[in-house]
Protein backbone atom coordinates (compact mmCIF):
# COMPACT_ATOMS: atom_id res chain seq x y z
CA UNK A 1 0.00 0.00 0.00
CA UNK A 2 1.95 2.96 -1.24
CA UNK A 3 0.66 6.34 -2.23
CA UNK A 4 2.81 7.90 -4.94
CA UNK A 5 1.15 11.25 -5.49
CA UNK A 6 -2.11 13.16 -5.51
CA UNK A 7 -3.48 15.79 -7.86
CA UNK A 8 -6.53 17.98 -7.35
CA UNK A 9 -7.91 19.81 -10.37
CA UNK A 10 -10.72 22.31 -10.60
CA UNK A 11 -13.29 22.17 -13.43
CA UNK A 12 -11.12 24.31 -15.70
CA UNK A 13 -8.04 22.12 -15.39
CA UNK A 14 -6.16 24.29 -12.92
CA UNK A 15 -4.15 22.26 -10.45
CA UNK A 16 -5.29 23.31 -6.96
CA UNK A 17 -3.08 20.95 -5.05
CA UNK A 18 -0.27 18.52 -5.67
CA UNK A 19 1.66 16.36 -3.22
CA UNK A 20 4.01 13.50 -3.74
CA UNK A 21 5.45 10.90 -1.38
CA UNK A 22 7.17 7.95 -3.01
CA UNK A 23 7.82 9.16 -6.50
CA UNK A 24 10.79 7.44 -8.08
CA UNK A 25 10.42 8.87 -11.55
CA UNK A 26 9.58 12.38 -12.66
CA UNK A 27 7.82 12.90 -15.97
CA UNK A 28 10.80 14.79 -17.38
CA UNK A 29 8.83 17.99 -17.95
CA UNK A 30 8.07 20.98 -15.74
CA UNK A 31 5.33 20.65 -13.15
CA UNK A 32 3.01 23.02 -15.04
CA UNK A 33 3.44 20.92 -18.17
CA UNK A 34 2.86 17.74 -16.22
CA UNK A 35 -0.41 19.07 -14.75
CA UNK A 36 -1.59 19.99 -18.22
CA UNK A 37 -0.68 16.59 -19.57
CA UNK A 38 -2.42 14.82 -16.70
CA UNK A 39 -5.58 16.89 -17.01
CA UNK A 40 -5.60 16.46 -20.77
CA UNK A 41 -5.26 12.73 -20.43
CA UNK A 42 -8.14 12.54 -17.95
CA UNK A 43 -10.28 14.75 -20.15
CA UNK A 44 -9.73 12.50 -23.16
CA UNK A 45 -10.16 9.43 -21.02
CA UNK A 46 -13.61 10.57 -19.94
CA UNK A 47 -14.80 11.08 -23.46
CA UNK A 48 -13.15 7.85 -24.64
CA UNK A 49 -14.84 5.82 -21.93
CA UNK A 50 -18.22 7.46 -22.56
CA UNK A 51 -18.09 6.52 -26.22
CA UNK A 52 -16.77 3.00 -25.72
CA UNK A 53 -19.32 1.98 -23.10
CA UNK A 54 -21.88 -0.51 -24.40
CA UNK A 55 -24.53 0.71 -21.94
CA UNK A 56 -25.35 4.00 -20.22
CA UNK A 57 -22.84 4.96 -17.55
CA UNK A 58 -23.31 6.31 -14.06
CA UNK A 59 -19.92 7.08 -12.54
CA UNK A 60 -17.88 6.65 -15.70
CA UNK A 61 -14.12 6.31 -15.48
CA UNK A 62 -12.86 4.94 -12.14
CA UNK A 63 -9.26 3.80 -12.44
CA UNK A 64 -6.59 2.41 -14.69
CA UNK A 65 -3.50 0.41 -14.02
CA UNK A 66 -0.23 -0.26 -15.78
CA UNK A 67 2.40 -2.82 -14.82
CA UNK A 68 3.75 -0.51 -12.09
CA UNK A 69 1.08 1.79 -10.71
CA UNK A 70 -2.66 2.38 -10.48
CA UNK A 71 -4.37 5.72 -11.05
CA UNK A 72 -7.61 6.34 -9.15
CA UNK A 73 -10.01 8.98 -10.33
CA UNK A 74 -12.94 10.68 -8.63
CA UNK A 75 -14.97 13.54 -9.98
CA UNK A 76 -17.56 15.55 -8.08
CA UNK A 77 -20.73 16.79 -9.79
CA UNK A 78 -19.22 20.28 -9.84
CA UNK A 79 -16.26 19.05 -11.87
CA UNK A 80 -13.56 18.94 -9.19
CA UNK A 81 -11.23 16.03 -9.92
CA UNK A 82 -9.21 14.08 -7.37
CA UNK A 83 -6.51 11.84 -8.83
CA UNK A 84 -4.32 9.54 -6.79
CA UNK A 85 -1.53 7.27 -7.97
CA UNK A 86 -0.86 4.25 -5.80
CA UNK A 87 0.80 0.88 -6.19
CA UNK A 88 -1.13 -2.06 -7.64
CA UNK A 89 -2.24 -3.54 -4.34
CA UNK A 90 -4.90 -0.90 -3.69
CA UNK A 91 -8.49 -1.78 -4.52
CA UNK A 92 -11.40 0.60 -4.97
CA UNK A 93 -10.70 3.81 -3.02
CA UNK A 94 -13.53 5.93 -4.36
CA UNK A 95 -14.76 6.65 -0.85
CA UNK A 96 -11.29 7.74 0.28
CA UNK A 97 -11.05 10.17 -2.62
CA UNK A 98 -14.52 11.42 -1.78
CA UNK A 99 -13.43 11.96 1.84
CA UNK A 100 -10.37 13.88 0.67
CA UNK A 101 -12.69 16.08 -1.31
CA UNK A 102 -15.26 16.58 1.42
CA UNK A 103 -13.22 16.54 4.66
CA UNK A 104 -9.63 17.41 3.99
CA UNK A 105 -10.59 20.71 2.36
CA UNK A 106 -7.51 21.12 0.22
CA UNK A 107 -7.02 24.63 -1.07
CA UNK A 108 -9.02 26.07 1.83
CA UNK A 109 -6.22 26.86 4.27
CA UNK A 110 -6.57 30.40 5.68
CA UNK A 111 -5.51 33.12 3.29
CA UNK A 112 -3.60 34.98 6.04
CA UNK A 113 -0.90 32.28 5.97
CA UNK A 114 1.81 32.61 3.37
CA UNK A 115 1.84 30.19 0.44
CA UNK A 116 4.55 27.98 1.98
CA UNK A 117 2.69 27.66 5.28
CA UNK A 118 -0.57 26.94 3.48
CA UNK A 119 1.04 24.13 1.49
CA UNK A 120 2.58 22.65 4.60
CA UNK A 121 -0.75 22.79 6.44
CA UNK A 122 -2.60 21.10 3.59
CA UNK A 123 0.02 18.45 3.34
CA UNK A 124 -0.14 17.66 7.05
CA UNK A 125 -3.92 17.41 6.92
CA UNK A 126 -3.72 15.09 3.93
CA UNK A 127 -1.10 12.86 5.53
CA UNK A 128 -3.05 12.49 8.73
CA UNK A 129 -6.19 11.63 6.80
CA UNK A 130 -4.41 9.08 4.60
CA UNK A 131 -2.93 7.46 7.69
CA UNK A 132 -6.44 7.18 9.11
CA UNK A 133 -7.76 5.74 5.86
CA UNK A 134 -5.18 2.95 5.92
CA UNK A 135 -3.14 4.31 3.04
CA UNK A 136 -0.14 5.59 5.00
CA UNK A 137 2.02 7.98 3.06
CA UNK A 138 4.80 7.49 5.61
CA UNK A 139 8.56 7.98 5.25
CA UNK A 140 7.86 11.64 4.77
CA UNK A 141 10.69 13.46 3.16
CA UNK A 142 10.20 16.39 5.49
CA UNK A 143 13.62 17.80 4.71
CA UNK A 144 12.49 18.26 1.13
CA UNK A 145 10.28 21.27 0.44
CA UNK A 146 6.64 20.24 0.03
CA UNK A 147 5.48 20.52 -3.54
CA UNK A 148 2.21 22.33 -3.73
CA UNK A 149 0.55 24.56 -6.23
CA UNK A 150 -2.25 26.96 -5.90
Amino acid at each position, binding site marked *: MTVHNLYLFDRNGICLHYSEWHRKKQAGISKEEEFKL*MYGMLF*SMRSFVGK*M*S*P*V*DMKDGFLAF*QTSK*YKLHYYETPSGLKVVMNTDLGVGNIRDVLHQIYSNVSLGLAPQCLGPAARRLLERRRLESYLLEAGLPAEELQSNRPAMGYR
Partner: protein
Amino acid sequence: MSDEKGKSLGRESGKPRAFTALPEHVATPRPGQPERNTIPIIQRSKIGNNCLSHNALRCHIELHLPKCPELTGADMAIFSVYVVNKAGGLIYQLDHYAPRSETEKTFSFPLDLVLKLHDERVVVAFGQRDSIRVGHAVLSINGIDVNGKYTADGKEVLEYLGNPTNYPVSIRFGRPRLSSNEKLMLASMFHSLFAIGSQLSPELGSSGIEMLETDTFKLHCFQTLTGIKFVVLADPRQAGIESLLRKIYEIYSDFALKNPFYSLEMPIRCELFDQNLKLALEVAEKAGPFGPGS
Protein backbone atom coordinates in the same frame (compact mmCIF):
# COMPACT_ATOMS: atom_id res chain seq x y z
CA MET B 1 -30.55 -12.59 -33.27
CA SER B 2 -31.86 -11.18 -30.05
CA ASP B 3 -35.31 -12.58 -30.75
CA GLU B 4 -33.97 -16.07 -31.32
CA LYS B 5 -32.04 -15.93 -28.10
CA GLY B 6 -35.04 -14.69 -26.27
CA LYS B 7 -37.23 -17.45 -27.59
CA SER B 8 -34.83 -20.12 -26.51
CA LEU B 9 -34.51 -18.49 -23.10
CA GLY B 10 -38.27 -18.41 -22.79
CA ARG B 11 -38.54 -22.08 -23.65
CA GLU B 12 -35.83 -23.13 -21.26
CA SER B 13 -37.49 -21.44 -18.37
CA GLY B 14 -40.72 -23.23 -19.18
CA LYS B 15 -42.62 -20.16 -20.41
CA PRO B 16 -45.57 -20.89 -22.72
CA ARG B 17 -44.74 -20.81 -26.39
CA ALA B 18 -47.73 -18.66 -27.13
CA PHE B 19 -45.64 -15.63 -26.19
CA THR B 20 -42.91 -16.18 -28.72
CA ALA B 21 -44.43 -14.26 -31.58
CA LEU B 22 -45.45 -10.65 -31.09
CA PRO B 23 -47.79 -9.46 -33.85
CA GLU B 24 -46.17 -6.73 -35.87
CA HIS B 25 -49.13 -4.37 -35.60
CA VAL B 26 -48.87 -4.33 -31.83
CA ALA B 27 -45.22 -3.37 -31.82
CA THR B 28 -45.33 -0.47 -34.24
CA PRO B 29 -47.92 2.25 -33.90
CA ARG B 30 -49.57 3.39 -37.09
CA PRO B 31 -48.53 6.93 -37.83
CA GLY B 32 -51.95 8.12 -38.89
CA GLN B 33 -53.61 7.00 -35.72
CA PRO B 34 -54.38 9.83 -33.29
CA GLU B 35 -52.74 9.38 -29.90
CA ARG B 36 -53.00 11.17 -26.61
CA ASN B 37 -50.07 13.33 -25.72
CA THR B 38 -46.92 11.23 -25.15
CA ILE B 39 -48.65 8.15 -23.80
CA PRO B 40 -46.22 5.38 -24.55
CA ILE B 41 -47.71 2.89 -26.96
CA ILE B 42 -44.92 0.50 -26.33
CA GLN B 43 -41.51 0.59 -24.84
CA ARG B 44 -38.96 -1.80 -26.05
CA SER B 45 -36.19 -2.27 -23.56
CA LYS B 46 -33.70 -4.67 -24.99
CA ILE B 47 -30.97 -4.51 -22.39
CA GLY B 48 -32.07 -2.45 -19.47
CA ASN B 49 -35.09 -3.65 -17.58
CA ASN B 50 -35.59 -0.25 -15.97
CA CYS B 51 -38.55 0.22 -18.24
CA LEU B 52 -41.36 1.97 -16.40
CA SER B 53 -44.14 1.17 -18.79
CA HIS B 54 -47.34 0.08 -17.13
CA ASN B 55 -48.50 -1.21 -20.43
CA ALA B 56 -50.02 -4.65 -20.23
CA LEU B 57 -47.78 -5.69 -23.08
CA ARG B 58 -44.69 -5.27 -20.93
CA CYS B 59 -44.55 -8.76 -19.50
CA HIS B 60 -45.33 -10.06 -22.92
CA ILE B 61 -42.27 -8.33 -24.31
CA GLU B 62 -39.78 -9.05 -21.59
CA LEU B 63 -40.30 -12.77 -21.94
CA HIS B 64 -38.54 -12.99 -25.24
CA LEU B 65 -35.97 -10.26 -25.09
CA PRO B 66 -32.64 -10.85 -23.39
CA LYS B 67 -32.09 -8.83 -20.25
CA CYS B 68 -29.09 -6.94 -19.05
CA PRO B 69 -25.87 -8.97 -19.20
CA GLU B 70 -25.37 -8.35 -15.49
CA LEU B 71 -28.66 -10.03 -14.77
CA THR B 72 -28.61 -13.05 -17.03
CA GLY B 73 -25.29 -14.38 -15.81
CA ALA B 74 -22.64 -15.49 -18.25
CA ASP B 75 -24.49 -14.34 -21.35
CA MET B 76 -22.57 -11.77 -23.41
CA ALA B 77 -19.93 -10.80 -20.88
CA ILE B 78 -17.31 -9.85 -23.45
CA PHE B 79 -18.40 -6.75 -25.33
CA SER B 80 -15.82 -6.12 -28.03
CA VAL B 81 -12.32 -6.74 -29.31
CA TYR B 82 -9.98 -4.23 -30.95
CA VAL B 83 -6.59 -4.86 -32.55
CA VAL B 84 -4.41 -1.77 -32.93
CA ASN B 85 -1.16 -1.76 -34.92
CA LYS B 86 2.04 -0.11 -33.70
CA ALA B 87 1.19 3.17 -35.40
CA GLY B 88 -2.15 3.43 -33.61
CA GLY B 89 -4.27 2.34 -36.56
CA LEU B 90 -7.21 0.03 -36.02
CA ILE B 91 -6.65 -3.19 -37.96
CA TYR B 92 -9.47 -5.32 -36.57
CA GLN B 93 -12.64 -4.77 -34.60
CA LEU B 94 -15.40 -7.07 -33.45
CA ASP B 95 -18.57 -6.22 -31.55
CA HIS B 96 -19.80 -9.16 -29.60
CA TYR B 97 -22.86 -7.93 -27.74
CA ALA B 98 -26.60 -7.87 -28.23
CA PRO B 99 -28.38 -4.62 -29.13
CA ARG B 100 -28.31 -1.93 -26.49
CA SER B 101 -31.27 -0.43 -24.73
CA GLU B 102 -33.69 1.12 -27.16
CA THR B 103 -37.00 2.81 -26.48
CA GLU B 104 -39.78 3.59 -28.91
CA LYS B 105 -42.43 6.15 -28.04
CA THR B 106 -45.16 8.10 -29.77
CA PHE B 107 -45.09 11.85 -29.37
CA SER B 108 -47.51 14.61 -30.23
CA PHE B 109 -46.56 18.21 -31.00
CA PRO B 110 -44.73 19.95 -29.37
CA LEU B 111 -41.99 17.46 -28.57
CA ASP B 112 -41.19 17.55 -24.85
CA LEU B 113 -37.51 16.70 -25.42
CA VAL B 114 -34.79 19.04 -26.55
CA LEU B 115 -32.85 17.56 -29.45
CA LYS B 116 -29.59 18.84 -30.84
CA LEU B 117 -27.09 17.99 -33.49
CA HIS B 118 -23.91 16.50 -32.03
CA ASP B 119 -21.21 14.64 -33.96
CA GLU B 120 -23.48 14.40 -37.03
CA ARG B 121 -26.21 12.78 -34.96
CA VAL B 122 -29.47 13.99 -33.50
CA VAL B 123 -29.19 13.42 -29.74
CA VAL B 124 -31.28 14.24 -26.68
CA ALA B 125 -29.83 17.35 -25.02
CA PHE B 126 -32.41 17.88 -22.29
CA GLY B 127 -35.61 16.29 -21.01
CA GLN B 128 -34.43 12.89 -19.85
CA ARG B 129 -37.32 10.70 -18.71
CA ASP B 130 -38.28 7.05 -18.42
CA SER B 131 -35.65 5.20 -20.38
CA ILE B 132 -34.83 8.01 -22.79
CA ARG B 133 -31.56 9.44 -21.48
CA VAL B 134 -29.56 12.51 -22.32
CA GLY B 135 -27.08 11.47 -25.02
CA HIS B 136 -29.36 8.94 -26.66
CA ALA B 137 -29.66 9.34 -30.40
CA VAL B 138 -32.72 9.24 -32.65
CA LEU B 139 -32.50 5.81 -34.29
CA SER B 140 -35.72 5.72 -36.30
CA ILE B 141 -38.83 7.77 -36.98
CA ASN B 142 -42.11 5.99 -37.74
CA GLY B 143 -40.12 2.82 -38.32
CA ILE B 144 -37.83 4.46 -40.88
CA ASP B 145 -34.16 4.30 -39.91
CA VAL B 146 -32.20 7.47 -39.31
CA ASN B 147 -28.64 7.80 -40.65
CA GLY B 148 -26.86 10.75 -39.10
CA LYS B 149 -29.09 13.79 -39.43
CA TYR B 150 -31.19 12.39 -42.28
CA THR B 151 -33.83 9.67 -42.37
CA ALA B 152 -33.45 6.78 -44.83
CA ASP B 153 -35.89 8.51 -47.19
CA GLY B 154 -33.85 11.72 -47.25
CA LYS B 155 -35.68 14.04 -44.81
CA GLU B 156 -33.74 16.11 -42.33
CA VAL B 157 -34.61 14.88 -38.85
CA LEU B 158 -34.73 18.20 -36.95
CA GLU B 159 -36.75 19.85 -39.70
CA TYR B 160 -39.19 16.92 -39.87
CA LEU B 161 -39.73 16.96 -36.12
CA GLY B 162 -40.19 20.72 -36.13
CA ASN B 163 -43.22 20.49 -38.37
CA PRO B 164 -46.52 20.09 -36.44
CA THR B 165 -48.27 18.40 -39.40
CA ASN B 166 -46.03 15.35 -39.09
CA TYR B 167 -47.35 14.50 -35.63
CA PRO B 168 -48.18 12.14 -33.95
CA VAL B 169 -44.81 10.62 -34.61
CA SER B 170 -43.18 7.52 -33.20
CA ILE B 171 -39.48 7.87 -32.45
CA ARG B 172 -37.04 5.19 -31.39
CA PHE B 173 -34.22 6.35 -29.11
CA GLY B 174 -31.14 4.48 -27.99
CA ARG B 175 -27.42 4.66 -27.41
CA PRO B 176 -25.83 5.52 -30.74
CA ARG B 177 -23.80 2.74 -32.32
CA LEU B 178 -20.21 3.62 -33.11
CA SER B 179 -19.51 4.20 -36.77
CA SER B 180 -16.37 2.65 -38.23
CA ASN B 181 -14.83 6.12 -38.43
CA GLU B 182 -15.40 6.64 -34.71
CA LYS B 183 -13.89 3.25 -33.95
CA LEU B 184 -10.75 4.22 -35.86
CA MET B 185 -10.60 7.46 -33.94
CA LEU B 186 -11.11 5.77 -30.55
CA ALA B 187 -8.41 3.22 -31.32
CA SER B 188 -5.82 5.88 -32.04
CA MET B 189 -7.02 7.81 -29.01
CA PHE B 190 -6.36 4.78 -26.85
CA HIS B 191 -2.94 4.46 -28.45
CA SER B 192 -2.03 7.95 -27.20
CA LEU B 193 -3.61 7.45 -23.76
CA PHE B 194 -1.54 4.28 -23.46
CA ALA B 195 1.65 6.23 -24.14
CA ILE B 196 0.76 9.10 -21.79
CA GLY B 197 -0.10 6.57 -19.07
CA SER B 198 3.44 5.31 -19.13
CA GLN B 199 4.97 8.80 -19.36
CA LEU B 200 3.14 10.04 -16.26
CA SER B 201 4.17 7.03 -14.22
CA PRO B 202 5.59 7.76 -10.75
CA GLU B 203 7.53 4.47 -10.94
CA LEU B 204 10.41 3.53 -13.20
CA GLY B 205 9.88 1.18 -16.11
CA SER B 206 6.11 1.28 -16.26
CA SER B 207 4.19 -0.17 -19.18
CA GLY B 208 1.21 1.60 -20.71
CA ILE B 209 -2.39 1.08 -19.59
CA GLU B 210 -3.07 -2.59 -18.99
CA MET B 211 -6.50 -2.37 -17.47
CA LEU B 212 -9.01 0.46 -17.36
CA GLU B 213 -11.96 0.29 -15.00
CA THR B 214 -15.32 1.98 -15.31
CA ASP B 215 -18.66 1.19 -13.68
CA THR B 216 -20.04 -0.52 -16.81
CA PHE B 217 -17.06 -2.28 -18.33
CA LYS B 218 -13.38 -3.07 -17.95
CA LEU B 219 -10.94 -2.57 -20.78
CA HIS B 220 -7.99 -4.95 -20.86
CA CYS B 221 -5.02 -4.31 -23.11
CA PHE B 222 -2.09 -6.50 -24.01
CA GLN B 223 0.77 -5.09 -26.03
CA THR B 224 3.04 -7.55 -27.80
CA LEU B 225 6.80 -7.06 -28.13
CA THR B 226 6.25 -5.95 -31.72
CA GLY B 227 3.91 -3.19 -30.60
CA ILE B 228 0.54 -4.59 -31.60
CA LYS B 229 -2.15 -3.98 -29.01
CA PHE B 230 -5.02 -6.36 -28.35
CA VAL B 231 -7.86 -4.67 -26.49
CA VAL B 232 -10.82 -6.49 -24.97
CA LEU B 233 -13.86 -4.77 -23.46
CA ALA B 234 -15.63 -7.00 -20.97
CA ASP B 235 -18.05 -7.02 -18.08
CA PRO B 236 -16.30 -5.80 -14.89
CA ARG B 237 -16.88 -9.18 -13.26
CA GLN B 238 -15.65 -11.34 -16.12
CA ALA B 239 -12.56 -13.31 -15.11
CA GLY B 240 -9.86 -14.84 -17.27
CA ILE B 241 -9.36 -11.96 -19.69
CA GLU B 242 -5.56 -12.13 -19.31
CA SER B 243 -5.49 -15.62 -20.77
CA LEU B 244 -8.01 -14.64 -23.44
CA LEU B 245 -5.68 -11.85 -24.60
CA ARG B 246 -2.80 -14.34 -24.91
CA LYS B 247 -5.13 -16.65 -26.80
CA ILE B 248 -6.08 -13.87 -29.21
CA TYR B 249 -2.38 -13.18 -29.80
CA GLU B 250 -1.95 -16.87 -30.62
CA ILE B 251 -4.91 -16.78 -33.01
CA TYR B 252 -3.47 -13.67 -34.63
CA SER B 253 -0.11 -15.39 -35.14
CA ASP B 254 -1.70 -18.57 -36.46
CA PHE B 255 -4.42 -17.25 -38.71
CA ALA B 256 -3.42 -13.72 -39.72
CA LEU B 257 0.38 -13.80 -39.80
CA LYS B 258 0.55 -17.23 -41.40
CA ASN B 259 -1.93 -16.23 -44.08
CA PRO B 260 0.15 -15.62 -47.24
CA PHE B 261 -2.23 -12.88 -48.35
CA TYR B 262 -1.99 -10.90 -45.12
CA SER B 263 0.39 -7.95 -45.07
CA LEU B 264 1.71 -6.68 -41.75
CA GLU B 265 0.11 -3.64 -40.10
CA MET B 266 -2.84 -3.80 -42.51
CA PRO B 267 -6.48 -4.53 -41.68
CA ILE B 268 -7.06 -8.21 -40.92
CA ARG B 269 -9.48 -9.81 -43.35
CA CYS B 270 -8.99 -13.49 -42.73
CA GLU B 271 -11.93 -15.83 -42.38
CA LEU B 272 -10.11 -18.28 -40.15
CA PHE B 273 -9.05 -15.47 -37.82
CA ASP B 274 -12.68 -14.39 -37.51
CA GLN B 275 -13.96 -17.89 -36.83
CA ASN B 276 -11.33 -18.77 -34.29
CA LEU B 277 -11.63 -15.46 -32.49
CA LYS B 278 -15.37 -15.88 -32.09
CA LEU B 279 -14.81 -19.39 -30.83
CA ALA B 280 -12.25 -18.17 -28.29
CA LEU B 281 -14.63 -15.48 -27.04
CA GLU B 282 -17.37 -18.02 -26.51
CA VAL B 283 -15.03 -20.39 -24.70
CA ALA B 284 -13.81 -17.55 -22.47
CA GLU B 285 -17.34 -16.49 -21.64
CA LYS B 286 -18.34 -20.02 -20.67
CA ALA B 287 -15.12 -20.86 -18.82
CA GLY B 288 -14.48 -17.53 -17.10
CA PRO B 289 -16.90 -17.57 -14.18
CA PHE B 290 -17.82 -14.27 -12.65
CA GLY B 291 -15.42 -13.68 -9.80
CA PRO B 292 -14.38 -10.61 -7.83
CA GLY B 293 -10.71 -11.04 -8.69
CA SER B 294 -11.05 -10.68 -12.43
